[in-house]
């Protein structure tokens, strides 16, 4: 019943409610701008939150993530361009509806479905996260290292099309995370005599570089054309109970699919949306309408991609393993405020965690209301903002935000380098998300590895002697083998990428 206390904390603080409302609006707008992701917005806004109370900072960024996932549907429906990767599946049926003058109906369906999916995911998170944390508290360093290795392999090989490119991205993240003093012996590593590198590469400038500057560099190559709004309106363009009732079974199924996928690190909302869309079409009474403007084809992916949000916090909060880029960014907020994430978080900051969950519940209601009544207006405003006016501002804010994190010009150099790397990774098919998540995971993984070896009389064999650790190592190996096999099959000559 800690969630009741959390809700009382949130609802009793007008300032906190104001931050949550602002986050709901910012996330919806950013998500609806093609090419600008919620991750980029969160990375850019991260330094602004350093002056805030920990709960306000976390709630602000967490709700931007939720609202941003939903906001992508606005662009998908109105502009035929997904605002985020997670809304690509929504575009398939959403835009045909808009072309028929039913944009309002499609957007309201997306809003209601996103809200139901998000609430389903959050309620499952709140119900089960305490139990997961209880189990996590009983894991020792060898078991944690096994989980870390499985997470590296899953994140590296599952995100993106190519397991080899995903693993390369993750390995690059690990390598760069080891720059600085060794945490056990204090030996400088990969610093090349540069004093500024002895403290390691900062997480915030790195993320600003990869997600903000990398995206701006991508956009300068091909600045997006001003999107066209498919106008709806009229009596036919309202959502009625009769319209929405056939969507409900799809929304219920997709919410469960999204929540399950959300718990698995690395898979994310785009995969959840496509799995839910495919499953919905397979079971639909009207499969011939899917792809040509079926409301159910909007409801299913939208419920799934938002249901991911809550459960994706479970591995982050209980094990310190971020399952998504937004989770990786939230790690930075926890660290800045001196809060240790992982199993002990539920002992040391239990009230904060449940207040954060409560903020998520309130945030869902807020973006739901804003979206239901204001999504069309947001779409019209975004259509009037040309890319050539937006991205230079994002570029300049990114630079100053990298400086503002620690008041360090060296961090700005790190951000620029990371921006170039992020652009190059996108350009040549590597995976920036796997890179950043691996960067974040490395500290905990190395600590677990070294602690395990200090505990062990048998060296690395300790990982084979502990069944849980061995199980996770085998899981990682199995996932990698399956992905390599899948990639091999997907190519005409059978060679994996």
């Amino acid at each position: 019943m800690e969630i009741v206390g959390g809700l009382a904390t949130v609802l009793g603080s007008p300032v906190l409610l104001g931050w949550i409302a602002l986050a709901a609006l910012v996330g919806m707008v950013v998500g609806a701008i093609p090419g600008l992701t919620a991750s980029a917005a969160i990375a850019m806004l991260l330094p602004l939150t350093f002056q805030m109370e920990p709960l306000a900072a976390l709630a602000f960024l967490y709700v931007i993530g939720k609202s941003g996932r939903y906001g992508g549907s606005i662009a998908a429906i109105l502009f035929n361009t997904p605002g985020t990767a997670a809304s690509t599946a929504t575009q398939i049926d959403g835009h045909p509806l808009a072309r028929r003058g039913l944009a309002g109906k499609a957007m309201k369906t997306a809003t209601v479905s996103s809200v139901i999916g998000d609430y389903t995911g959050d309620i499952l998170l709140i119900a089960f996260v305490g139990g997961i944390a209880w189990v996590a508290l009983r894991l020792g360093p060898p078991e944690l290292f096994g989980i870390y290795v499985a997470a590296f392999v899953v994140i590296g090989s599952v995100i993106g099309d190519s397991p080899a490119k995903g693993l390369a991205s993750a390995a690059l993240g690990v390598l760069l995370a080891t720059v600085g003093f060794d945490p056990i012996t204090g030996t400088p590593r990969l610093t090349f005599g540069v004093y500024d590198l002895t403290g390691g590469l900062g997480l915030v400038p790195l993320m600003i570089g990869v997600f903000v500057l990398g995206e701006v560099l991508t956009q300068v190559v091909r600045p997006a054309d001003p999107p066209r709004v498919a106008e709806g309106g009229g009596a036919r363009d309202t959502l009625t109970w009769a319209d929405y009732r056939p969507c409900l079974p799809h929304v219920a199924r997709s919410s469960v699919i999204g929540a399950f996928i959300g718990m698995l690190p690395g898979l994310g909302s785009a995969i959840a949306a496509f799995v839910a869309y495919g499953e919905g079409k397979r079971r639909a009474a009207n499969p011939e309408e899917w792809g040509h403007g079926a409301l159910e084809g909007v409801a299913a992916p939208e419920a799934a991609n938002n249901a991911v949000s809550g459960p994706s916090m479970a591995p982050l909060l209980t094990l310190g393993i971020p399952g998504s880029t937004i989770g990786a960014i939230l790690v930075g907020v926890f660290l800045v405020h001196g809060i240790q994430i992982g199993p002990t978080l539920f002992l040391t900051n239990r009230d904060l965690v449940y207040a954060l969950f409560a903020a998520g519940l309130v945030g869902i209601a807020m973006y739901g209301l804003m979206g239901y009544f204001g999504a069309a207006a947001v779409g019209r405003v975004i259509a009037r903002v040309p890319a050539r006016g937006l991205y230079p501002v994002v570029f300049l804010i990114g630079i100053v935000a990298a400086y503002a994190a620690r008041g360090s010009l060296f961090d700005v150099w790190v951000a620029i380098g990371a921006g170039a790397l992020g652009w190059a990774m996108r350009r040549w098919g590597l995976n920036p998300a796997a890179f950043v998540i691996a960067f974040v995971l490395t500290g905990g993984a190395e600590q677990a590895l070294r602690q395990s070896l200090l505990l062990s009389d048998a060296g690395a064999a300790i990982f084979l002697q502990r069944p849980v650790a061995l199980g996770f190592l085998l899981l990682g190996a199995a996932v990698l083998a399956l992905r390599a096999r899948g990639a091999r099959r997907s190519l005409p000559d059978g060679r994996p990428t």
Partner: protein
Amino acid sequence: MGEDANRPVGLALVAAGVAGGLAALSIGGWTGGEWGPRTVPLLAAATLALAGVAIAASPAARPPRAAGEARVVLLLALAVLYVLGIDRIGYLLATGLAAPAAFALFGVRKPLRLVATAVAVPLALHLAFFRLLGVFPPLGSWFDLLDWVPL
């Protein structure tokens, strides 16, 4: 075409892995035991190199997108000059110069608009970050407008 797209990427990753491995081998403070500060960087470098080999040896699943690298290089050069400018002439003036250049790179051509960005952007960012949030602004080592303008 597919073969060409993946091979240079793979080879670049192999080179990065080898360079990372050599750098990891030079890490000191290792007492000769099995595991030390070198272990994780070496494992990462080896994985990077092996993944690079796999990528170089495989065809691209799809051709790379068309690119206009010249604009990317120009924007990166602007970023570098901007930071050097901040260090020498302070944040306000450097932003006043960088803002119109960035807008021009994204296709804004009207001189009046560019002049407006040169004034409005540094002021807005200064007020947001250095006044409202209280971050200490980076001062120029040669000259700084903040010494003359009370903002």
